[in-house]
């Protein structure tokens, strides 16, 4: 029996994000919300662990109330419980208070044998939240993992590093972060989805956690954004020659000294 948590985040679909040509600001109003893709792989990894070794899966997200739809979707894939951590005081957090709040929730829920995360999010892409949670919890950790096995109280995982793939054995409890496409996530089933809607998600606010408001959210964030500039999209107006015009392209490449 493994007590498994998966930390997941709802993010704007990165394909829908653009720079507004007039205001030069990030336009995310058109963006649909999706579960951060590697978090879906982390959930699949959790379901596979449960299938093989038995256990209970809780998917957890810190975010706005509408993020419950993400939890329900993953419960449809096979997670048993959903926990939505939501409170104004958690807003604006950088990685330190994000990891702190999520670790406090994991602690509040009695701790886990393993907490799975995605390798990184598409919106903040730091990959720092998982190891941060591990540090707050005092857990072992393994990042960039695409294969997890559980043997005699240890996790054996395969992780990617630059220039190599390593297999390591880590202790329990642990935080393991899963790479995008580490596995092939199953689709939610209708039956499970209906059950998920019936069951609903558990709400956790700071009433339950009792964290010092000075230490969480924007106030508890050591980093501050000094300024932000939008980088103009290097959008071009390409020529679209037909296949019979390839020779012309080659002459351009010759002019540019590329073909020589």
């Amino acid at each position, binding site marked *: 029996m493994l007590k498994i948590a998966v930390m997941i985040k709802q993010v704007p679909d*990165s394909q829908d*994000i653009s720079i507004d040509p007039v205001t030069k600001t*990030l336009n995310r109003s058109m963006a649909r919300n999706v579960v951060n893709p590697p978090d879906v792989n982390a959930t699949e990894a959790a379901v596979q662990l449960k299938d093989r070794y038995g256990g209970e899966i809780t998917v957890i997200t810190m975010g706005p109330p509408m993020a419950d739809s993400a939890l329900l979707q993953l419960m449809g894939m096979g997670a048993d419980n959903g926990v939505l951590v939501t409170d104004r005081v958690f807003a604006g957090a*950088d990685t*330190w*208070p994000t*990891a*702190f709040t999520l670790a406090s929730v994991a*602690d509040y829920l009695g701790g886990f044998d393993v907490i799975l995360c995605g390798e*990184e999010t598409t*919106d*903040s*892409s*730091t*990959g*720092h939240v*998982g*190891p*941060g949670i*591990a*540090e*707050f919890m005092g857990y*072992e950790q*393994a990042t960039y993992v695409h294969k997890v096995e559980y043997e005699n109280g240890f996790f054996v995982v395969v992780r990617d*590093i*630059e*220039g*190599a*793939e390593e297999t*390591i054995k880590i*202790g329990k409890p642990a935080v393991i972060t899963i*790479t*995008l*496409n580490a596995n092939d996530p199953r689709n939610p089933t209708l039956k499970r989805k209906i059950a998920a809607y019936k069951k609903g998600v558990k709400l956790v606010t700071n009433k339950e956690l009792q964290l010092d408001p000075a*230490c969480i959210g924007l106030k508890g964030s*050591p*980093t*501050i954004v*000094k*300024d*932000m*500039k*939008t*980088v103009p999209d290097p*959008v*071009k107006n*390409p*020529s*679209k020659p037909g*296949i019979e015009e*390839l*020779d012309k*392209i*080659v002459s*351009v*490449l*010759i002019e*540019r000294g*590329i*073909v020589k």
Partner: protein
Amino acid sequence: MIKNRCATPPANVEIYKDLWIWLEQNDGELSRISLEMAGIGRKLADKYNEKLVGILLADENGERMAQEAIEYGVDRVIFVKNQVYRHYRTRPYADAIASLIVEKKPNYFVIGATHNGRDLASRIAVRVNTGITADCTEIDIDPSKKLLEARRPAFGGAILANILCSRHRPQMASARPGIFKPVDRVVGRKGEIERVENSIKEEDVVTKLLQIVTREEVDITTADVVVCGGMGLGKKEGFKILEDLANELGGIVAASRPTVDAGWITRDRQVGQTGKTVHPKLYIAVGVSGAIQHIAGMKSSEYIISINKDAAAPIVKYSDVALIGDAYEIVPRFIESIRKGKQALREGRASSAKK
């Protein structure tokens, strides 16, 4: 108790000094990223009169690596020697480095954002209650307040955020690999090596390395011509025709992430947010849709040709030339045209030489 944690800033930030970098090593060899960090570190240290300190955890090979780091611009290496540090493992590394930070109080700490670097940096930042800017692509120091200004792209590079960590120390950043350049090695350059004792024993470490399979790495970042294949190739064998195209152009084959994840090609060739950043003279994207995470890694290429069935694929609007059609039809014809062009060039040269 987790409950009582708070990232309370230190009272006296003025006593924090020096610029630290992590000297990542693998099995007794300094990683390429360590030289890159020494490069940016040296620049900042010269510009703002800082001392550049490299943190090295290694076995007996550390002596040689410490000297090498000094030759690449580091002023002083703090070398913690122990067999346990032969391979990177989160806990023993984080424990040793966090206690060095508490003892020596560095003002800045920059770590290369490799997988191990990110794994380590985030753990340390939480331990010592400071902030960290992840994956920055520009680093500078505001000289008046001695603040680290770390710029990082978000949303696939659509915005660039300048992030400060003004009240906490050390001011930490992880830096994207392949962006910062090493300085030239000066053989025999002198520096200090401070050797620190550590009595950790292998029995104390829970994590064990069971197996490591290394890959021969190719460097796609320095090629003048990059030919990148995507899922549109439909199969692993599709990369063969790209190999021919790349050979014809004296270039190198690269790939989008899902083709790597599918095992069609090795990870060292991946372009993008979670892969490499390239800026060749010519980038040819074949069967690549141009997702924001892909564009992040190639948009500063000088000239971009895309080959895609779909005229509405996002890659098209980033291209100088968009060839709309089937890759298997276009690529062989393209190769032919290049051969013809080269032939004509040679004949042209030959005839002008005769004159």
